[in-house]
């Protein structure tokens, strides 16, 4: 955790964390609304109105404390790889909200020029090397980026987010082993929302999960309540001190996915009582209560209002922005042989 440890420092830090979380929540809520009605899926009928955010939209609603707490400890020149559920990480790393919303709307002014959408959102200008449509695929990429940073002799690091489902894919094992063998500056963050697509992860995971597997390869590990943004901030800060010194580490942050696998999935496969309990443990509400206890309740309300205003402006900009010209389908494919498409 950066900065001092006095009450004023804590309030400043918590305000910053809350602001990030509020911006993520506002973004996810707006994207969710904009994604409804376009397709018939998960037992829901299409409304007849084309959705402005088309295709699979994986929301991180309820998981904001992990993105905010971890990324508060990253520098702008640190690198990040993310998952299909990556809006929160991208915002927390510093990407522009309007450019992100434009990307979700598939507009030319999006972060990726409309070529990637939600699942491939990236902003290299803030070191965000991309969300990924394949579970665990960011892990080897993160190790390679960290390898490059180490060879360059910098103190920059890579932060690699993945979900609890990813630990059952081979690249998790290969990537952690690789990072440890070469002493790479990479922080692995297992953002454990306890469900892999629509299957409870616990029913599909042997042994002690992410921590046990990482510990078996000698990585430094920490486990944290992923809905407690200050705890995440603190744990990530401690691990990142080690990572910046050249030792990989893994943070296991347990949280909960408030929404379905995708935005049009009502998640009926989950026990309603479980969902109800989880909604009572809203990470934003927990952070707000702490701010209120510090006498900053008004501040918290103002930050949530500001986040909604910001996202309204992003929505309006995205709505007004043009789609990419069809000719853009043929750019950034290959330079060698460009112009030959058949």
């Amino acid at each position, binding site marked *: 955790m950066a900065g001092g440890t006095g009450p004023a420092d804590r309030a400043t830090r918590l305000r910053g964390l809350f602001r990030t979380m509020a911006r993520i929540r506002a973004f996810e809520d707006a994207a969710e609304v904009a994604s409804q009605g376009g397709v018939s899926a998960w037992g829901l009928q299409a409304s007849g109105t084309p959705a402005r955010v088309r295709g699979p939209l994986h929301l991180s609603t309820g998981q904001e404390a992990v993105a905010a707490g971890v990324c508060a400890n990253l520098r702008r020149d640190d690198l990040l790889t993310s998952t299909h559920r990556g809006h929160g990480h991208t915002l927390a790393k510093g990407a522009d909200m309007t450019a992100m919303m434009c990307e979700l709307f598939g507009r030319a002014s999006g972060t990726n020029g409309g070529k990637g959408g939600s699942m491939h959102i990236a902003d290299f200008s803030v070191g965000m*090397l991309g969300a990924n449509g394949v579970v665990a695929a960011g892990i080897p990429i*993160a190790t*390679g980026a960290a390898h490059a940073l180490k060879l360059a002799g910098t103190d920059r690091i890579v932060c690699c987010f993945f979900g609890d489902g990813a630990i059952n894919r081979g690249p998790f094992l290969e990537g952690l082993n690789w990072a440890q063998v070469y002493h790479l500056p990479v922080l692995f963050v297992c953002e454990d929302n306890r469900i892999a697509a629509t299957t409870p992860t616990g029913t599909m995971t042997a042994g002690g999960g992410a921590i046990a597997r990482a510990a078996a390869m000698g990585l430094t590990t920490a486990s944290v309540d992923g809905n407690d943004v200050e705890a995440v901030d603190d744990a990530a800060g401690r691990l990142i001190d080690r990572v910046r010194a050249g030792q990989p580490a893994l943070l296991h942050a347990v949280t909960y996915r408030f929404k379905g696998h995708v935005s049009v999935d009502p998640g009926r496969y989950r026990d309603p009582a479980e969902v109800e309990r989880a909604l009572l443990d809203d990470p934003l509400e927990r952070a707000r209560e702490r701010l209120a206890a510090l006498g900053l309740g008004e501040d918290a309300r103002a930050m949530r209002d500001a986040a909604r205003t910001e996202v309204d402006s992003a929505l309006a900009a995205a709505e007004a922005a043009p789609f990419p010209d069809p000719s853009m389908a043929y750019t950034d494919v290959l330079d060698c042989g460009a112009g030959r498409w058949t």
Partner: protein
Amino acid sequence: MGAQPLSAAGSVSVTLTYAQAAASALAAAMQSDPRIVALGEDLGRGGVFGQYTLDGQPLAARFGPDRIIDTPISEANIMGAAVGMALAGLKPVVEMRVIDFALCGMDELVNQAAKNRYMFGGQGRVPLVARMPIGIWTASAAQHSQSLEAWFAHLPGLVVTCPATPQDNHGLLTSALACGDPVVYLEHKELWSTSGTVDRSVIVPLGRARIARPGRTLTLVTWSRMLLEALAAADELARDGIDVEVIDLRTLWPWDRDTVLESVGRTGRLLVAHEAVQVAGFGAEIAATVAEELGCPVKRLGAPRIPVGYAPTLEAEARIGAGKIAGAVRGWLA
């Protein structure tokens, strides 16, 4: 046609094996570009085929273990790490030893390397060279003998090249390392020890075929080790007065349509021969293009759609040799 020396004054021809030619090209590129690194299993000791050994010394002795990187047996992470390295500013050379092992790194090559530049809207590029040797390797059976070049020719975002000679392994690897986009670099498992003259000053551009043998009767397009069989077949047919023009395609994407169409325009017939399975092989693409553009008669010759068997009698069924090529030509012209 063919590789033209850029400067006659600067040309120095040496005799190198196919493996040495690649090592020589890689060493020269690494010398001039500090962003180039190579990673893969057993590279530190020079590569299992000596393809990372030059003048009797492993390249690691010259460039150190940070640039010639020995890796765990983790093909997915080797390929994925190369993507990450590339996005972070390096130019990695990936060694997969044989293409059959590269199949463990397909998400990383197909979903990540080939698409990252495009799907990120040009924010990043993936200038990696993936060396994945193809072909039948005598008595190595089904999992060490595949020719999968057509898979990669099918994928947007990848350059695909198949050098057949030491000169081209030097020249094409040099071009691949300068390319800036992902290159699937398909050496052949049975060409490592073949030797030939290499002029290190010769530029071999990606996407340019070479007329390996001029002729008038028929155009025979091929690539990789099948070039040797095609040339032997052409020699045999020449004794019967059949004058075959042999084109070494060298790069499968982008493939040199102009050279092929010009040749078939002269000869009036096209035969494509490749070691890969004929069904849905890249020969079909060339034959279809020639038929569409010129309306000329076309034929394909590739392996039957069977796995490569271990016993010599079984392996022989999967091989396309000079005899089968000559037989196909004779049968056609009869």
